[in-house]
């Protein structure tokens, strides 16, 4: 049974809607749990408050990592996969029953993991490095969740096949769905790696296996853990392309380039887990350099290509709509009142300038020594998965609420501000964490005054300032996230129903007009911005190598 969307014209399968809604709702619940944990963590790490006791600090850290990084993101991605493979293709869900089965598995996993963590049965942080040992129920929960997610990936593929067979779309897959396909392939490989590591760990926790090699565990764990992040990046970028299209009618100035870049992700990333073990014993330099440069830079290159392709799609569309003055007229006159647009744009800037720059520094063999396991590291991924992926998903939700849930967005004025509050907060949080890490402040650490220890260390007093910025940024980010959650929950459960296109608060742009005979560049502004980015990027790398020379010599 289809309904035809009166706003977009897509044919919407009525059976897939509840599945998308269910996954999206659990995603929001997970984010709420994650953000609650985040607030407690900020107020504990900031030693002026130092809220929790040590065992609860580590427990909350585990809880925050899992709910924010795993459950929120994956449930949202599952909703996205179903959306991209049915509604966007005018196709029906192949087997909704299996979709519900997958949903039940993921929910079970979600429940078991959270129970294990809160009951103190898994004080191992989300990385659970052996020989730290959680109780079997924890690993079981993770495995059930992963199996559910794997089934969702296969359903996505089944939907694509069905759409192709029934010819519900013409020509090639839309770029958004193509990107999701890349994400889905990476996800299947990733979850397979996850099985290689979690099944033996479960058996070990049950006592059937005597011991596990911690170095092997860590290597394989990151084969799973890092590739998972690549799924997130790929899904996020797919949404960027979709966002450019929905908000200004922009399309890649060259489809082929964007598609090749997605392909590079599949080739490049699955072996890049080595950058988690750059400062570890047990692996040789050649292995490290090969995996973190030659291979990883395939992925970095792909990201750089997307980083150009998405804004240039927006710029080109805007120019064709008449915003041709100067370099940045198109950007100034962009639809900033559309929260999905500002979410995507701020997400993109944050992801590039904070997440991207720091990521490459972390991923270089020598400079890794500076940041390894310091607060810089979570600072880096606040710049990728929080300001990037999370904000992008938040932006996408502003379209999902009216188009899938058929509800008006509540508190629309506040919604227009929300991306700015969240992005501002996370940017401040993430950069202060990165700087604190450069002063040597460790991550995952309860008390940096070392009260009760035989020896103590006092960090540079300048860190006091950055802790205050950290706290402000953290509280602002939590506020931004809570505002989003409230808007979404109120809209979905108590909001006004959408009766037709006239109730749509966000534009669904028509494709930008064809270019008239144009001379010169299609996206000069983007080129200038990208080169500016490159300068910042190289400056920071040079600075870090400079710092290295001030250290002890080591070889």
């Amino acid at each position, binding site marked *: 049974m289809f309904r035809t969307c009166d706003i977009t014209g897509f044919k919407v399968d009525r059976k897939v809607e509840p599945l998308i809604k269910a996954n999206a709702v659990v995603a929001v619940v997970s984010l709420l749990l994650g953000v609650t944990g985040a607030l407690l963590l900020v107020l504990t790490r900031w030693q002026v408050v130092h809220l929790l006791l040590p065992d609860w600090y580590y427990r909350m850290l585990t809880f925050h990592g899992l709910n924010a990084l795993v459950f929120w993101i994956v449930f949202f991605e599952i909703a996205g996969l179903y959306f991209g493979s049915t509604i966007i293709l005018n196709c029906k869900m192949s087997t909704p029953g299996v979709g519900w089965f997958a949903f039940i598995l993921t929910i079970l996993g979600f429940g078991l993991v959270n129970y294990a963590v809160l009951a103190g049965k898994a004080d191992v942080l989300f990385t659970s490095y052996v020989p730290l040992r959680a109780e079997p129920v924890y690993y079981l929960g993770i495995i059930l969740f992963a199996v559910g997610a794997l089934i969702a990936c296969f359903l996505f593929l089944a939907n694509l096949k069905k759409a192709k067979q029934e010819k519900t779309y013409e020509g090639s897959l839309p770029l958004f769905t193509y990107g999701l396909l890349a994400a889905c392939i990476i996800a299947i490989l990733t979850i397979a790696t996850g099985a290689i590591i979690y099944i033996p760990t479960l058996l070990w926790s049950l006592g059937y296996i005597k011991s596990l090699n911690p170095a092997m565990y860590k290597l394989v764990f990151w084969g799973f853990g890092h590739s998972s992040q690549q799924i997130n990046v790929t899904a996020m970028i797919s949404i960027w392309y979709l966002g450019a*299209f929905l908000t200004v009618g922009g399309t890649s100035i060259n489809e082929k380039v964007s598609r090749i870049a997605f392909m590079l992700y599949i080739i490049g990333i699955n072996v890049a887990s080595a950058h988690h073990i750059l400062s570890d014993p047990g692996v040789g330099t050649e292995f490290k350099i090969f995996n973190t440069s030659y291979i990883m830079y395939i992925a970095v290159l792909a990201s750089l290509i997307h980083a150009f392709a998405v804004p240039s799609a927006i710029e080109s569309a805007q120019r064709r709509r008449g915003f041709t003055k100067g370099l940045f007229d198109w950007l100034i006159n962009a639809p900033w009142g559309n929260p999905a647009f500002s979410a995507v744009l701020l997400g993109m800037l944050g992801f590039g300038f904070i997440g991207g720059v720091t990521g490459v520094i972390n991923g270089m063999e020598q400079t890794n020594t500076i940041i390894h396991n310091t607060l810089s590291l979570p600072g880096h991924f606040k710049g990728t998965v929080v300001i990037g992926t999370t904000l992008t998903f938040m932006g996408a939700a502003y379209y999902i609420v009216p188009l899938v849930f058929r509800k008006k967005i509540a508190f629309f004025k506040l919604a227009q501000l929300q991306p700015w509050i969240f992005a501002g907060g996370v940017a401040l949080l993430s950069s202060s964490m990165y700087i604190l890490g450069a002063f040597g402040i460790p991550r995952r650490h309860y008390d940096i005054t070392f009260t009760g220890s035989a020896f103590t260390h006092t960090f540079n007093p300048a860190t006091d300032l950055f802790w205050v910025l950290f706290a402000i940024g953290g509280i602002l980010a939590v506020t931004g996230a809570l505002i989003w959650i409230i808007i979404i929950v109120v809209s979905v459960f108590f909001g006004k129903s959408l009766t037709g296109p006239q109730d749509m608060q966000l534009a669904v742009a028509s494709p930008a007009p064809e270019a008239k005979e144009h001379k010169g560049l299609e996206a000069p502004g983007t080129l200038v911005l990208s080169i500016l980015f490159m300068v910042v990027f190289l400056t920071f790398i040079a600075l870090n190598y400079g710092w290295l020379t001030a250290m002890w010599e080591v070889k």
Partner: protein
Amino acid sequence: MSAIPPKEGWYYTKIAKEEKIWIGLALVVCLGLFATMILWHVYGKQNPSFTTYKTNVHEFNALYDAFVEKYKVGEEHGFAVVKPDPNTDVFMRAQIWRWEPVLILKKGESYRFHLASTDFLHGFSLQPINMNFMVYPNHDYVLTFTPTEAGEYKVICNEFCGVGHHLMVGKIVVEE
């Protein structure tokens, strides 16, 4: 197009000039970064080592004990204080929740550190200069350090190793 299939012929569209410039630049930068890592091994003086020996708790403890016995010069807060000769092997043991022993080194001299844990993973984090390495059980990670500045240094742990993780602080003194 992102939400609808791309136009016919998308595959043959020429790549725009600015996109070509950007991809070229990005490629050069990627290769440059790759080269930097390799060149730093030749010209740079801070490179993580790739020497690791297999060991076990029993063997490492024996090496550690012999080392401490040979060079011990005193005690502080129940930790042995050890002053090894330059250019020798130095054993540092990570164990919940202590770094042992306290070391006294000479500026400008090299020491062959052996880092190993006897229980969980630990993070060797040398402060205030902020150099960070991982320490594993059953792996003897060999890092040859040359302190370049005299002063008092601390080794904190920055890999989670249980509730007492934040109490794990060791000390290294570098003399002129």
